[in-house]
């Protein structure tokens, strides 16, 4: 008992220290954000590969909480080629959503901050680094060039505005080419495009009058209405039931082809990945553990975590006693160990695994793994 109180006292002291340092850091970033009239030169950059629409380079997004710094995204590199679909896979809490929010610069301040790295976006007028881009400039990109579909269709639509108005708003904002009188027509066209049968009726509905699947379609229509170059779909099907899931995915794929956009698909559902993605990125505890073409990763998974993920997916027509599940749970994001984060859950771990955090290594042109079990170029 006495020990506990001593420990708690320690904890209080520590929390105080954390609060103090957090405050200083957050203040620094917030003042940075508040700067006005940032010259364009500061955030202009060049793409490593001009065929990419987006390059995420060594991205770090941290949350400064009372418990310490949560390293949600901890050095992530992703390239999204033009017109392709990249799937970001991982358990919940591994940093997928934060990565996507970082791209939109929607990480909730002041506790959440992008602390390091670049997000290069291949803008028609010249590439920019989103991390350095001021919010004002971001507002012309959000919903226009890059749009996002959120995972909670039930709460992501504003309950007090009619569906039509919410889509109209985005069109009016980003598409000066559409005449005022045509906005409604355009919206209804979008609603029809996402497969809503009585689009006229839905136009004047309130969100609560629609089912979850309908709302997700509305969300998709909203994100597509300005012909974005890139769509971030954050678990677009999680909240929906299975039949709707398939429809929505189908829809997304059709639309992508229609408007020739790139997609960053965030999901924990490997089935969806197999169906949709050209490339797969597997994240674990804020880091990428494996990445490659979906073909490679699915047929030839390397990282024990990926293997585990694939194993835990139920397969039709295959009789198993028990569905596989990866033992243990994701490590505490505040106190990440200084060895491979997966070591404690890994059934292949050995002595090498204690020697620092493994780097992401090319084992193939199209395949990278971060695991001590594999060496560069070694299959």
């Amino acid at each position, binding site marked *: 008992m006495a020990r506990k109180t001593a420990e708690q006292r320690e904890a209080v002291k520590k929390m105080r220290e954390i609060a103090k340092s957090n405050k200083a850091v957050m203040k620094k970033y917030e003042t940075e954000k508040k700067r006005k009239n940032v010259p364009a030169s500061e955030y202009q950059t060049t793409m490593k590969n001009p065929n990419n629409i987006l390059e995420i380079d060594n991205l770090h997004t941290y949350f400064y909480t009372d418990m310490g710094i949560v390293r949600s995204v901890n050095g992530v590199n992703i390239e999204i080629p033009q017109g392709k679909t990249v799937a970001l896979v991982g358990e919940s809490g591994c940093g997928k959503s934060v990565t996507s929010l970082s791209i939109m610069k929607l990480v909730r301040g002041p506790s959440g901050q992008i602390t390091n790295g670049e997000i290069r976006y291949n803008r028609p007028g010249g590439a920019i680094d989103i991390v350095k881009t001021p919010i*004002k400039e971001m507002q012309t990109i*959000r*919903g*226009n060039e890059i749009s996002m579909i959120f995972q*909670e269709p039930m709460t*992501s639509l*504003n309950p*007090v505005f009619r569906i039509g108005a919410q889509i109209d708003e985005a069109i009016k*904002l980003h598409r000066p080419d559409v005449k005022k009188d045509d906005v409604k027509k355009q919206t209804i066209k979008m609603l029809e495009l996402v497969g809503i049968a009585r689009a006229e009726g839905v136009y004047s509905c*309130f969100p609560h009058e629609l089912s979850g699947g309908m709302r997700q379609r509305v969300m998709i229509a909203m994100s597509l209405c300005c012909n974005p170059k890139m769509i971030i779909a954050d678990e677009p099907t999680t909240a929906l039931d299975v039949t709707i899931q398939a429809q929505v995915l189908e829809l997304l794929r059709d639309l992508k082809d229609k408007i020739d956009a790139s997609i960053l698909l965030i999901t924990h559902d490997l089935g969806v990945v197999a169906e949709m993605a050209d490339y797969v990125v597997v994240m674990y505890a804020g880091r990428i553990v494996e990445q490659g073409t979906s073909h490679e990763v699915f047929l030839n998974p390397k990282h024990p975590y990926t293997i585990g993920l694939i194993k835990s997916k139920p397969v039709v027509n295959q009789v198993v006693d028990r569905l596989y599940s990866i033992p243990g749970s994701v490590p505490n994001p505040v106190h990440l160990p200084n060895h491979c984060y997966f070591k404690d859950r890994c059934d292949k771990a050995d002595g090498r695994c204690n020697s620092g955090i493994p780097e992401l290594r090319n084992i193939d042109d199209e395949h990278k793994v971060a695991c001590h079990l594999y060496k560069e170029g070694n299959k």
Partner: protein
Amino acid sequence: MWQYIVRRICIGVVVLMGVSMIIYGLIRTAPGDYVSTLTSSNPEVTQEMVDRLNELYGLNDSIPEGYAKWAAGVFRGDLGDSFIEQKPVAEVLSSKMWISFWMAFPAYILQILIAIPLGILSATKQYSKIDYAVTTIALMGMSLPSFFFAAILQRIFAQGLGWFPLSGMKTARMDYEGFALMLDMAKHLVLPVMVLTVLGIGGLMRYCRTNMLEVLNEDYIRTARAKGLSESKVVYKHAFRNTLIPIVTILGGMIPGLFSGSMITEGIFGIDGIGNTALTALRGGDIPYIMGSTLFMAALTLVGTLVSDVLYGVVDPRVRLK
């Protein structure tokens, strides 16, 4: 909807009966009845006269009997005659309630105009210096006794600077008419309105701030941002419209209360409204008026909650009243 309102009104009638019973019982048990007030300072009054007066004012009835008589009158639409003013209670109430209203209404509007923007401001800048300053000032307003604040205002603006009249409802010396009279009366209302406004801002501002903070955490606000809307659009259109739901609801509920007057402020500024008269009636044992005015105030409270519930259904598209 109509069914709902009708049901609520029925419940309201029952509640009002309860309220009136309690008050009648208390009034009749408490000392300080009208006749003794009238007669006690006059040594010439004889016991016979007192008895006769008691009979006349119905003070010889037992409490249940007296209540039954009163209630029967109410159901016939007759609230009785005020002892003090010797006029029908309904007539007195209907004239004084507008006076109270015209004092409370400007304050109500001002509160809305001041408190809501302040609440939004301090919510969007939570924990900033602005937030602290706004919250402190707004809360200071509701941390002062009204009579204290009123006295200080009178001292500064009436006695000291002479900008506004000390009290009263119009300049007695002048025979203003029409627009000039309205202007003159408005000038007399400035200080009381100030008191009521400042007293009310704190609560409303805080209510607004909390709701705004809650709304700002909602998913659809993130959606709005992801759409590329400017921060002001996000706050003033998307968040604000949602914050408005609870605010409109309570604001609507406050409207009936504007007629119920305020005892202390009206007294200090010599305004002949419902509250002031009710206080005089309470002090003078004017049972019909006390009953009438408390019933009126209770009914206003009930109507207020009903209005706010109905408004909730009207303003929030998600709610359907049953």
